[in-house]
């Protein structure tokens, strides 16, 4: 299994009030899977995604990705781990506005030991893959929402990560652009074998995934919509 989650719990404290975001979740995700995490607001799906991606820490339990328990890594180790193993796609694209599409995609590669020439090859390949080979020198504000999200996907891909995490990737897109982005993610999964974990509210978006995992009140629901 690429991702192995055991008895994962996440508690948030707001003063004296404790909120359970994730309640003893156990879950396996195989390499090459395209998984959709669905659930209502506050169900804990984004929290689960953040812990798998190493940008949040569990209160208890284990989260192994490629046999590494991400909860055991220090902040610096986690940063390096994320650079090598995780590609992020966010709802609001989160591109750096002063950098061109090319430079945004190149950004994660600045932390690697690749030469300038190697970086250029990787960046051009990633942008060609998402169909933006002709928009490399455009700034984010010169691109449509769908194009911005495709640049974000190229940025997520460019380091050839172990898994791609997408948090509501179509939440800010029109229906047509959403279809394009979801189709792109599906292609990456099917043709490039990328493992993708996507959080979404939208059943139509979830339909692009191979498996849908439902969460409610911090717990996984079984296939019948019941708590296990």
């Amino acid at each position: 299994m690429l991702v192995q989650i055991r008895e994962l719990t996440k508690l948030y404290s707001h003063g004296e009030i404790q909120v359970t975001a994730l309640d003893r979740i156990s879950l396996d995700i195989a390499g090459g899977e395209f998984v959709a995490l669905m659930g209502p607001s506050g169900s804990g799906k984004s929290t689960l995604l953040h812990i798998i991606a190493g940008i949040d820490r569990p209160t208890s339990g284990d989260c192994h990705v490629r046999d590494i328990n991400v909860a055991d890594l220090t902040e610096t180790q986690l940063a390096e781990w994320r650079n090598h193993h995780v590609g992020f796609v966010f709802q609001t694209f989160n591109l750096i506005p002063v950098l061109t599409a090319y430079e945004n995609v190149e950004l994660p590669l600045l932390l690697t030991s690749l030469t300038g020439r190697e970086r250029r090859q990787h960046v051009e390949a990633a942008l060609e893959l998402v169909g933006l080979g002709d928009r490399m020198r455009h700034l984010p504000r010169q691109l449509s929402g769908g194009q911005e999200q495709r640049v974000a996907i190229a940025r997520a891909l460019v380091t050839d990560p172990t898994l791609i995490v997408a948090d509501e990737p179509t939440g800010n897109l029109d229906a047509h652009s959403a279809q394009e982005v979801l189709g792109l993610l599906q292609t990456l999964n099917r043709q490039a074998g990328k493992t993708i974990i996507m959080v979404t509210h939208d059943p139509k978006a979830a339909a692009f995934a191979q498996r849908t995992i439902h969460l409610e009140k911090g717990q996984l629901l079984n296939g019948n919509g019941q708590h296990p």
Partner: protein
Amino acid sequence: MTIPGFILRNAFRNKRRLILTILSVALSLFLFTTLRTALDLMTDPPTTDTAALRLAVRHKVSLANVLPEKYQYRIERVPGVAVCSKFTWFGGIYQDISKSNFAQFGVDADRILKIFSEMAVPPEQERAFIQERTACLVGYKLMERFGWKLGDRITLQGTAWGCDLDLTIRAAYRGQGIDETLVFFHHEYFNEAMNNLGLVGTFWLKTENAEVIPSVIAEIDKAFANSDAETKTETERAFQLEFVSMMGNVRLFLGSILVAIVFAMLLVTASTMSMAIRERSREISILKAIGFDSRQIFGLILAEAFGLAMAGGALGCFGAKFFFSHLDIYKMSQGFIPMFPISTETIALGLLVAGLLGVVSSLVPAYSTLKTTVVAGLKELD
């Protein structure tokens, strides 16, 4: 793209703010450099190797008290004294008081150039100055200011002393590290005009070498101890500093302004960096998410703040150097300030202050950003 290129892109993202911030830092550093130079000139005047051998003998009570002329004979006989001259401030008015902000001194014409050997005078002019009782020796800057020529006659109306002096310009001097706005005339002529009063403001002397200075000082002051006019002998530097101290605590005053400038500069830079980083907090979280660690993010913020402060600092410091080197400060100040050299040390200090402020101003916003988790940063401004 490179990491420095990325830092530059971030710095230039808001060009108006960048320019205004750099200009405000530059202006602060310009003032800092200017005031620091003014402070240096007042408290640490330019000096030369020859100046280290000069001593001034004045009345122990104050500079306003005078000494008997006859002291010169005794001073000259102190072992280690090479040459001694009378040196009396006249304080006369030339034409009207607004033009008279230059100093005039009665001296021993045949000795003064041996004591102040940095003053360069053509030999024939030196001879002419020494030979004529009413001759005077004038600094080149003063000659240029009033358009005087050799042979011109000038009249100084006495204020502190009850006589007027009619002088003929016979020589002009240039001087490395010497104020070129002074007038020297024969003390003998002044004394006659004062009906042989026999009083002297100070005596200036040159010692044979630096080693004898302590013993010369002790010997002279001992010679006149318990007399009606006890003396205080001191080095040129000590004398100048004491003269400055008569203006009050200028050092504290200028020092306070310098501190205020540095503090204002800190606030400006810190405010700019806070705004710049705050509006970028989400992007910083993205950088963290894609693999930049805290140390690298801190480096990016620090480099940007440092670069910004140094750009402003360099503009201010070198701008001041350029400005004052191309400005005729003597003419502009109506002769009040003879020269205004911005030293390399002052520029280095200014750049150091700018660099430190860049670092300090980035610490708080950088720290607050670093302690924000990626998830919290991404939620901000959502």
